[in-house]
């Protein structure tokens, strides 16, 4: 592969303690190398006056799979209004918008400077399809997390007190799905939804079970993720998402985790006070305080931006509630013995009290959680807004004055329920590099991502001037992925293929003999077709569990 030198750029590489130092970066064979090992005559990019950052890493997004396709089909009006990508010599046609098509997803992420994404919710039953789609998302590298907190095999074993066997089943399922980690969505609640119920309290047995509680599911899965030495801890979508007063559930969940590692997804949707929609208020301070005191936890913001969105989640009961609130469209899926899924198109409006509070809470959490290594930039795409709007959030974080201007647009009633006006913190460029790249890479356990040290994957984003103005993040001058210049002058030039990272945790060889008869009894497909074959993945790399 070609060698490349990036000379004269101001480098921000927080993982290696480099904060705005003018230095050269050398790339060979897709990796960052030491200056001395670069062959003479390498192409040089003159980055003088430009800013050099590690390529972005999205720790929580929804870019492939059954639920996303359901959403694509449900909102043709968005597809019509979406940005069109015409096919070119090396580019495939596609649509941007709320739920971009596979190829467009790759172009849009790369065009913004992001080079690794984590698809955060995959049912095992649609894992094969998900990998086929990930296969078709160019440029960016991918990981995926498999839904586990409402899997009836696992819940039945927890009910029977067979924690050890549950661990082996989880391990087998992770490998069957060719996943990278474990996702837990509304633990127990999606299972209860199959009875028309939800799991609102952490310590009450869930519908259909005598003893299993959401708290037990959370702590068991967190323990299993630790025991299996998964690089990314349990990725947890807490109970009571979106509901006023849910901050108590969130802080209680942190207590239940009791020292285990965990990643709390889209924390914004879990930090509300009040008793109902009319009294809803921000409780970001309480959630941030509790979170700051638990150093083993990470979280992503799940920030909300005003405008169109499509909500997609395995949290079926919540989606039904949201549908009743909006009265527009609703999609609901039952995924056999594993999980569910709901789709509701949604518009966040700045005049609306609830939406205003949601917008503020996302930013408040990013500003109140003091360790940027533990809170990451996401919108829970496409739930809180589209990933291609991340630059708008960066701008809001870096510029307190701009933030206050935006705040003035909210109704007085909303402003009384939020804290944002009191927060003067402004993110530095280095902190932006942490929440958008270095932090999520570390949380995902991807040691070659999110930094620019020797041996790292050569995923580099170069912005034209010091982007004090966050919107400049929309237009990187160059994006380098795996050593290839994929974006030049803001336009996708060279379409490379992304890789997938998966894990193969240890598991009892006999566990398949336990699962097979159960599976054949309750599933509608044949067992032989359940697990995803390695051939389905593009260029997979099995990451170590250690």
């Amino acid at each position, binding site marked *: 592969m070609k060698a490349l030198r990036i000379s004269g750029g101001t480098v921000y590489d927080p993982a290696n303690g480099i904060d705005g130092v003018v230095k050269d970066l050398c790339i060979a064979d897709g990796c960052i190398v030491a200056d001395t090992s670069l062959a003479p005559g390498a192409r040089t990019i003159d980055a003088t006056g430009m800013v050099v950052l590690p390529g972005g890493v999205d720790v929580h997004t929804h870019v492939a799979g059954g639920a996303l396709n359901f959403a694509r089909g449900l909102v043709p*009006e968005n597809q019509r209004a979406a940005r069109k990508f015409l096919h070119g010599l090396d580019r495939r046609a596609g649509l941007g918008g709320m739920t971009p098509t596979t190829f467009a997803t790759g172009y849009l992420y790369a065009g913004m400077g992001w080079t690794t994404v984590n698809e955060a919710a995959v049912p095992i039953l649609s894992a094969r399809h998900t990998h086929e789609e990930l296969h078709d998302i160019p440029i960016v590298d991918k990981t995926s997390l498999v839904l586990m907190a409402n899997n009836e095999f696992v819940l039945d074993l927890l009910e029977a007190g067979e924690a050890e066997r549950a661990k082996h089943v989880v391990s087998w399922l992770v490998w069957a799905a060719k996943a990278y980690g474990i996702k837990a969505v509304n633990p127990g609640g999606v299972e209860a939804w199959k009875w028309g119920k939800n799991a609102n309290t952490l310590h009450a047995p869930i519908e259909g079970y005598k003893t299993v509680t959401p708290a037990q599911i959370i702590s068991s899965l967190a323990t299993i993720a630790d025991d299996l030495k998964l690089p990314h801890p349990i990725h947890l979508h807490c109970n009571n998402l979106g509901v006023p007063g849910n901050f108590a559930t969130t802080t209680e969940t942190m207590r239940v985790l009791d020292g285990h590692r965990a990643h709390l997804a889209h924390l914004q949707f879990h930090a509300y006070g009040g008793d109902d929609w009319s009294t809803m208020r921000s409780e970001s301070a309480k959630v941030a305080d509790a979170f700051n005191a638990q150093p083993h936890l990470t979280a992503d913001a799940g920030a909300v931006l005003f405008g169109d969105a499509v909500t997609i989640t395995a949290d079926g009961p919540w989606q039904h509630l949201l549908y009743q609130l909006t009265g527009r469209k609703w999609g609901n899926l039952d995924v056999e013995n594993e999980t569910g899924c709901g789709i509701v198109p949604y518009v966040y409006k700045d005049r609306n009290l609830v939406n205003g509070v949601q917008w503020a809470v996302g930013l408040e959490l990013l500003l109140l959680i003091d360790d940027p290594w533990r809170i990451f930039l996401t919108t829970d795409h496409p739930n809180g807004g589209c990933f291609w709007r991340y630059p708008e959030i960066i701008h809001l974080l870096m510029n307190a004055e701009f933030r206050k201007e935006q705040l003035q647009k909210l109704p007085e009633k909303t402003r009384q329920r939020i804290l944002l006006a009191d927060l003067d913190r402004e993110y530095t460029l280095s902190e932006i590099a942490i929440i958008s790249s270095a932090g999520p890479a570390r949380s995902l356990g991807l040691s070659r991502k999110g930094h620019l040290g020797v041996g790292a994957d050569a995923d580099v984003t170069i912005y034209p001037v010091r982007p004090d103005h966050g919107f400049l993040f929309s237009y990187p001058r160059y994006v380098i992925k795996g050593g290839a210049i994929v974006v030049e002058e803001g336009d996708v030039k060279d379409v490379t293929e992304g890789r997938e990272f998966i894990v193969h945790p240890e598991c009892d060889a006999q566990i398949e003999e336990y699962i097979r008869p159960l599976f054949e009894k309750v599933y509608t497909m044949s067992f032989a077709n359940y697990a995803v074959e390695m051939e389905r993945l593009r260029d997979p790399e099995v990451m170590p569990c250690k």
Partner: protein
Amino acid sequence: MIRFTLKETPSVPLEAEVLSPDALVSLAADQIRALPVLLGKRRRRLDEFFEVEGDGGDEIEIRGDAQRVKWIGRGMTRGTLRIDGNAGMHLGSAMSGGTIEVSGDVGDWLGAEMTGGVIRVRGNAGGQVGAAYRGGLSGMRDGLILIDGSAGLELGMRMKRGTIVVGGPVRDFAGLQMKGGTIVLREGAELRTGAWMNRGTIVSLKPIPLLPTFARAATYNPTFLRLYARRLASFGCGLPYDEQDGRYIRYTGDTAVPGKGEILVWEPRA
């Protein structure tokens, strides 16, 4: 004024959205002749299909059987478009102003998603008059469509505002998923009129088969119809409203949605 005379009906549909006052108003005759049209997928010159006379101005006349010429008057905002003959699909689609007059018949999607202006068709219209395109949330948002003859399926589908008046019979699903606006059916309609309608008014001067999800609500002579009658009288089509002549039976629905729309069926005094 510019006059276009169709040389012969093209063998495959011709897409000619340049036949619009907005596109032509500032052009000289030779520029107009060279405007691009699409014959199937092939790009051709306008004068291969039309004789062009006159130049400038926002008054256009088209002569000949243009039933295979699509997208005439697309997005027009001003001026007059007179068609002496037939016109193809998507006539006046997304127009926001000006007037279109057609002496013959028109194809499907007449005035689809239009936001203003007036369309008058002396002959018959196809389906999806004033409708939303597939995947669109709302159909026509304002303006007036008058059809002297019959109309096809899904008339006014998802329309939000504006008025459609049809002189002849209308086929199934008139006012499907209607969100607002007014449809006047002078000769009634076939099945499932107003299915899934949320809001809006459908006035039928003839008895029509109603869905079971419409409930009889009242018998009255609504005042607002006087205003409609006065406006429509200026286009030469009356609308009965006087108590001495009869009354309207009001049905509300579609309760399957549930909707707050209404169907008013005229009942002449015996």
